């Protein structure tokens, strides 16, 4: 228990999938407290399935998934969402017919009776993304892609989770917006957040993360440091991500 409790996320022997077959097989990965870990791989490698399994959004899953020492493998997503894990999903998936601030407050639903804590979290989100403060009464549908990604990350922060799961936050954003997102993730790491970042862009992952896992065909095939990944450069891209 004591070793497990030192990890924000500890996955072992995880199989998960849809219908009759497993998309991911025998996954083992760890994210230490305050660590940022990248999960790289091509389309269809099963990266998103790993995140969805942690969040409980895939029913069919076997193995162990410990979040801060708690096994969540049999838990419903709305229980996992109560401070254990939170995600900024692929495609952002904001509640588009609601305002920016309502989206953020819905992110911290389990803290609704702790107004002071919610207020502090909201202030920290606006500190991270000052532009959102001016837009708080706007419908989130009216924001640009980059701003929507900020709301998605802010919504994730609002539940003050043990582990933050980010699914390709750089996808379909302008270079300027990608830079803002990357700086925000680096800032979160400085604040002591534990992050599992799914990415296809090596440059984004190496800037943010302490460690990287490479996934292909539903399996984790390699673990490396950002320096190794940078050194490997194009050969890594050609081998796995091409």
């Amino acid at each position: 228990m004591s070793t497990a409790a030192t990890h924000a996320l500890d996955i072992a022997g995880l199989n998960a999938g849809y219908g009759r077959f497993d998309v991911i097989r025998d996954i083992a990965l760890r994210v230490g407290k305050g660590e940022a870990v990248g999960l790289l791989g091509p389309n269809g490698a099963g990266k998103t399935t790993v995140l969805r399994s942690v969040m409980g959004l895939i029913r069919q899953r076997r193995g162990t998934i410990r979040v801060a020492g708690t096994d969540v493998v049999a838990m419903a997503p709305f229980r996992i969402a109560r401070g254990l894990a939170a995600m900024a999903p692929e495609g952002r998936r904001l509640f588009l017919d609601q305002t920016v601030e309502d989206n953020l407050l819905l992110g911290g639903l389990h803290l609704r009776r702790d107004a002071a804590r919610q207020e502090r979290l909201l202030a920290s989100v606006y500190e991270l993304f000052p532009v959102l403060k001016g837009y708080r009464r706007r419908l989130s549908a009216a924001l640009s892609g980059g701003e929507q990604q900020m709301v998605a990350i802010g919504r994730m922060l609002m539940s003050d989770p043990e582990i933050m799961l980010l699914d390709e936050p750089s996808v379909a954003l302008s270079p300027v917006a990608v830079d803002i997102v990357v700086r925000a993730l680096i800032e979160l790491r400085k604040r002591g957040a534990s992050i599992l970042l799914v990415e296809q862009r090596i440059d984004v992952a190496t800037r943010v993360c302490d460690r990287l896992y490479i996934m292909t065909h539903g399996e984790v095939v390699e673990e490396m440091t950002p320096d190794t990944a940078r050194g490997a450069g194009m050969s890594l891209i050609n081998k796995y991500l091409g």
Partner: protein
Amino acid sequence: MLQFVASGIAIGCVYGMIGMALAITFYVTRIINFAQGQLMMVTVMVTAEVTGLGYSAWLGVVAGLACSCIIGVLSYLIAVRPILAFNRFGFGWLVSTLGFAVMVENGAAWLWGPTSIPFPTILNNTSVHFGEAAVLTGQQILAIATALIAAVVFEVVRKRTLFGKIGMATAADPEMASAFGVNTTTVAIVAFAASALLAGLAGVMIGPSTFANPYLGDTFGTYGFIAMMIGGGTERPVAALYGGILLGLSAEGANALINSRASDWFPFLVLALILVVSPRGLFSSQSPLMRRRVAAAAR
């Protein structure tokens, strides 16, 4: 002229309430509960029964509404939830809710027999004159007032309360809602109870003129469905009320201006025409009528 407008609005509000009831459950679960008319009938029958036993009409109404709510929640737990758990995107709920409707209807017919039993008059014996032109019963005015209050309450809850915002999030993206701590089953149960309550209220409004009959649900369920479709309630539950009023006006108008049988077919013609012009309903955010307003609001 004014008379058919006034009584059209009154009956339209009843259709609209059933339409809104259908729309509320559709909004949250994306299924249409074909037992909605039967939930209305349950209130009517139980109210009639309790009043028939010698208790006051208001006690009967409360008991009737409570029974509708319970059976509404049961319809979710028995006929919807297991089906959606099996396949969220299939159409199994179509058969299962229809089956639930048949069960409730036949249960009522077995309990009370197939013929009508008396329903308390409530405000049906009072009348209000609008100059020389129109006269409405107190019951009709009560129906209009109840529908308007229900619509306002629904909108205020939806937009101004945390529960409403949770409901909106669940409607828009149930999976994301659950990933942020929403117990979507609880939301659905509340929606089905609220929806049954609204259908039951519609029954209380119409009961004094139809009397209590186990087969009441068929007709009113169908008219409620039309109200939702022409209004565009699948996207904005309140739009179903507008659809209901339009339906009531066209039925009463056809009755007054064409002949008494026209009220049976004319509303369906209106339905067909509206769906050709605006497939998502007249007052949905996607209709040609509303698109400009929505665009202006987003700016």
